[in-house]
């Protein structure tokens, strides 16, 4: 019987998906060169829950090389320990009051200090080595939406309305950035110690700053390159616009990998390398993203770098979801996309705190050891036992700190639509997934004409033969493989359909 191989090719929902090798669905999978790989689910590191919605997450590095994770909620700042979340909110001034409808915490580390800003609050800082609580950042800095470190300078950007530039009566606004004195995060007086401020004359409000030695000022309608000019007291930083009429929708929807800036614009994602703009979603996923993301929640689209060649844009699919429920995954090496369906309050690239394997006496975190009777023990090769291992972390719906290392998520991959027997109807008896799973289902979308609405079959289980008996007859076929959550598998390439002519339409 003739067999037709249909690959789960590159996921490109924006192009015509007829008789080609593109995939129409690739959910909860990582894109590979010629296959898709499973995305693990969120594994709680601790059952301790943040008492409020998480609106900021960051790992700060200590002098001994270990890392400490901090989180922000609307009213408090928190530090994670193996004993749970510890309140590290300022001790004077009362709780914070971050307006969650427009803002999240922004964090940046400068030396031993972690700086946290939100537009409603006086910038905060904490010495991660010695201090127990956050306190106001010295130097009388104005309130700001975003904090970032470029070289030896702390940058505050999108300065809150209603304040003044330190040392002056110049009012602050959302188009301004202010940088600290060189190597002095306690000085924000422009004109002193190379501290200065700039106001973007056009391009809209500043969303934030990204980058390392070469920085990017990201606005909602422009992007400017920011470069320190050592020894130049007149200029200090050169600022040149490199993108006009395009910028980032979200204060959190951009970031860099090496010196490449990735950002989510009104019409989809882009990559900016120096002044080279690359619309990485065009004719791939941009239209899909615009159609499948909540307009109201686009202010909160979050860019998340990972320790693998992937970046993630977490977003909300509709206005009724409180948290991120979907994510776009981009393999920047292969330039391929996929999606994930995972609910999380906040995402971040984190680094693990070590969990002590010692069983002598009671120690924080012992409840996570298998022999201590943990309900969710971590395997002995889990990254949790190593300090400082990078991982993609999140706060799940319940407020628990998690790593993306849990059981595989429910995966779905769908082929493009195919005329299996050109010019004729095709009868498909069996579908054999090219995937190392023995659990899963195949569903088939069929139609006679492109103008018809596709009819979707039941989910047919894989049988002992490794195939699913679908028994469909139509001119056009499209096959979807669904692999249940928790199933171990490694790669999925496509399906092999047994098809034969079934008369003319």
């Amino acid at each position: 019987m003739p067999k037709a191989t249909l690959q789960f090719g590159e996921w490109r929902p924006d192009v015509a998906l007829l008789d080609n090798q593109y995939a129409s669905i690739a959910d909860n999978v990582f894109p590979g060169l010629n296959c898709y790989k499973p995305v693990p689910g969120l594994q709680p590191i601790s059952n301790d829950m943040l008492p409020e919605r998480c609106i900021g997450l960051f790992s700060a590095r200590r002098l001994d090389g270990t890392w400490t994770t901090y989180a922000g909620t609307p009213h408090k700042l928190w530090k994670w320990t193996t004993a749970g979340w510890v309140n590290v909110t300022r001790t004077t001034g009362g709780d914070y009051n971050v307006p969650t409808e427009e803002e999240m915490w922004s964090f940046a580390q400068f030396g031993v200090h972690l700086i946290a800003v939100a537009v409603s609050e006086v910038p905060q800082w904490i010495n991660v080595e010695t201090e127990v609580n956050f306190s106001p950042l010295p130097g009388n800095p104005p309130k700001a939406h975003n904090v970032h470190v470029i070289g030896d300078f702390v940058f505050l950007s999108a300065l809150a309305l209603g304040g003044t530039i330190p040392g002056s009566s110049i009012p602050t606004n959302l188009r301004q950035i202010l940088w600290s004195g060189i190597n002095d995060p306690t000085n924000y007086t422009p004109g002193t110690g190379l501290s200065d401020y700039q106001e973007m004359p056009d391009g809209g409000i500043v969303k934030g700053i990204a980058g390392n030695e070469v920085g990017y000022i990201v606005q909602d309608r422009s992007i400017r390159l920011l470069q320190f000019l050592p020894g130049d007291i007149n200029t200090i930083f050169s600022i040149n616009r490199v993108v006009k009429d395009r910028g980032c929708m979200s204060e959190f929807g951009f970031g860099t990998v090496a010196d490449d800036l990735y950002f989510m614009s009104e019409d989809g994602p882009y990559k900016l390398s120096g002044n080279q703009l690359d619309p990485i979603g065009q004719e791939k996923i941009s239209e899909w993203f615009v159609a499948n993301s909540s307009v109201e929640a686009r202010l909160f689209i979050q860019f998340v770098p990972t320790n693998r060649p992937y970046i993630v844009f977490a977003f909300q699919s509709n206005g009724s979801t409180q948290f991120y429920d979907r994510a776009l995954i981009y393999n920047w090496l292969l330039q391929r996309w996929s999606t994930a369906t995972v609910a999380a309050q906040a995402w971040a690239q984190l680094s693990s705190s070590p969990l002590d394997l010692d069983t002598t006496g009671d120690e924080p975190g012992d409840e996570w050891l298998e022999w201590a009777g943990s309900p969710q023990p971590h395997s002995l090769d889990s990254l949790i036992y190593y300090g400082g291992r990078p991982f993609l972390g999140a706060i799940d719906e319940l407020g628990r700190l998690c790593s993306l290392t849990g059981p595989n998520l429910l995966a779905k991959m769908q082929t493009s639509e195919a005329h299996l027997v050109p010019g004729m109807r095709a009868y498909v008896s069996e579908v054999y997934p090219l995937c190392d799973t023995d659990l899963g289902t195949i569903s088939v979308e069929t139609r006679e004409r492109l103008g018809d609405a596709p009819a979707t079959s039941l989910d047919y289980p894989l049988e002992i033969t490794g195939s699913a008996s679908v028994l469909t007859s139509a001119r056009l076929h499209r096959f979807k493989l669904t692999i249940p959550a928790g199933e171990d598998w490694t790669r999925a390439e496509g399906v092999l359909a047994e098809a034969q002519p079934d008369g003319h339409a």
Partner: protein
Amino acid sequence: MRREHEIFDSDGGSLGHITLSQNQMKTLATGGLIAVRYHTPQLLRDVLGDRHGLFELKLDGEHITATDPGEVKRYIELLDAIEHA
């Protein structure tokens, strides 16, 4: 705007007040010398002119003293101008 730190010349005469950062005060407190570099903020140069300079400060007993009083005065003039710009 109140500036916290009074600066003196080597004879004990007051030069005026400036604001030093917490990091600069820590350096002074440990017996270190600090260099204060100043410039007219870029967006105020049209109004205030292009001024810049450098002076050093050290802690001399209870007084913060400057080795170049003229530069400190010019810096304070600039701070005043920025404040009123």
